[in-house]
């Protein structure tokens, strides 16, 4: 196991972690705030990729693809939340089944509208290729993903820790009843956070579309990973989402490279161990 191998794996692991963070950042807060188990989260990811594809096929640039995906998925997420999830607070089984229903419906709609073929999102020229640093090759696109994740993480952290809105959000996560009692508009904040989570997932989908591709089944493929990151990192914690993403990203990559036969196991087993010790996850706030 050379240094090259290590550096390569760490780089891959961190770039995958960046993708996971985009996917999961909002999910952790949604969990913390509303305890909503959302099986549709994978669908937001996939539909985001599909929407960006459609927009880009009509000649729009990559950045517009991301924006379009974010807007459409935000609307879908808000609609789903308002019409159904709002009423199911506290009913985990109801949430799982309802959101699963939507996930299946979206999966079929995806098949109807975009068909069964896999697609990749064409990357803008300045994001393709790699940077050569000595013996290492770092694909520019992966660095871009990490950059996006860092920006998102910083923005979220700033908002949560340094603004009044962030304080209200944290209050809602810690104790929704008290927050309501103090005059915080829990309903609006919950809806906003839910929309934000969906938007981030859709951005993750667009971004992943550039290197993994957009294809039917990607929604259910990414879902277990998303849940594992949230579980391990702890619900309701941004730091947890970050640490969880890094852990999962690195474990997954090293596991696949070192023990391909047990690669999923090397991911989910440490997770089970962490949970055995701390059922609320590493940094869980709820």
């Amino acid at each position, binding site marked *: 196991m050379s240094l090259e191998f290590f550096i390569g794996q760490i780089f891959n692991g961190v770039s995958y972690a960046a993708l996971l963070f985009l996917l999961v950042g909002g999910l952790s807060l949604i969990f913390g705030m509303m305890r909503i188990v959302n099986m549709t989260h994978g669908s937001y990811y996939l539909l985001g990729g599909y929407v960006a594809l459609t927009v880009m096929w009509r000649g729009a640039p990559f950045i517009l693809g991301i924006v379009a995906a974010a807007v459409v998925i935000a609307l879908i997420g808000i609609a789903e939340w308002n019409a159904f999830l709002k009423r199911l607070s506290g009913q985990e089984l109801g949430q799982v089944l309802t959101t699963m229903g939507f996930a299946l419906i979206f999966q079929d709609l995806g098949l109807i509208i975009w068909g069964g073929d896999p697609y990749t999102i064409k990357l803008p020229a300045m994001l393709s290729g790699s940077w050569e640093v000595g013996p290492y090759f770092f694909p520019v696109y992966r660095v871009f993903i990490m950059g996006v994740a860092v920006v998102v993480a910083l923005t979220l952290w700033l908002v949560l820790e340094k603004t009044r809105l962030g304080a209200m959000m944290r209050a809602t996560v810690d104790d929704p009843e008290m927050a309501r009692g103090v005059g915080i508009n829990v309903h609006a904040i919950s809806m906003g956070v839910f929309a934000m989570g969906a938007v981030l997932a859709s951005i993750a989908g667009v971004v992943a579309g550039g290197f993994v591709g957009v294809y039917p089944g990607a929604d259910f493929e990414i879902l277990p990973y998303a849940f594992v990151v949230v579980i391990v990192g702890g619900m309701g914690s941004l730091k947890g989402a970050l640490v969880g993403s890094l852990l999962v990203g690195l474990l997954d990559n090293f596991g696949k490279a070192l023990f391909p036969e047990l690669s*999923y196991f090397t991911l989910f*087993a440490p997770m089970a161990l962490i949970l055995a010790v701390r059922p609320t996850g590493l940094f869980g706030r709820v």
Partner: protein
Amino acid sequence: METFVRRAPRAAALVAAVVLLALPPFVSSFMLSLLTQALVWAMLAMSLDLLLGFTGLASLGHAAYLALGAYSVGILTTRHGANFWTALAVGVLLAALGAAIFGLVALRATGVYFLMITLALGMTVWGLANRWVSVTSGDNGISGVPRPRGLPFDVSGALPFYYLVLTAFVVAFVILWTVVRSPFGKTLVGIRESESRMRTLGYHVWLHKYVGFVIAGAGGGFAGVFWAYYNGFVSPADSELATSVEILLMVALGGRGTLFGPALGAFVIVLLKNVVSIYTHRWLLILGVVYIGTIVYAPEGIIGMARDWLKARGRAQLRPAPSP
């Protein structure tokens, strides 16, 4: 009329029994295959009901036990020529062992956490099934699983195999029914209603939940054994998240906490998936609508709706007649 209200559930059960026993020799091979499949899933759904309906623990990883039972059969019969009894025993024991280990981790939590932890634990089985290629053949699955060998009669035909599965279903039902009606089962219901109350009354709550969890897992493995024999094929899809959610749906749709309900729910879903897909490609969409419809319109499931309907009729009988 009053007697109808009281006797209806028993009559329905009787009708179901007669249909399952006597009808199969006369139906098409497609329908026979569906009925066999439905019985397997009914066993699986009933085992989850012990956990969900009676103990109040919603598990998102129950497919793991289906897989453990199925893979036991798959590996033992195709690579070691094992007979039915060996494969059955190993399948059930392995599933029970899995539940015993998982239960230690999962039962440290309740509610949403329990849901998430069982999801994660179910994923470990899925991960092994997918990647431990030398044992499970990974994505390719294990094919060529023969029909059960070593029984006093030949079950390679569809009809004898159906009756074998029906017998298994009856065995599973009787065992679960006994568990549920026993003091142990009543304690589980008490735990579902209020853990703190049971603890105050002196019951060892964790131990009861743990034993229930292991029994449910063993039941899942039992169903998994017959699932492998039915399909002749085992794959990682048997342990994926969507499968676990589907079992939950069967329990919720039928009516949790009733054993009959989940069995009924399993029949409905199996028939729906297989019959609807003949007429339209859009069966996923329809299944999704069923998921949502169940929660919105029938949160207590079909049995729940039937109970409410019967109660309403019963009440109608007791209303005083208008004065002449």
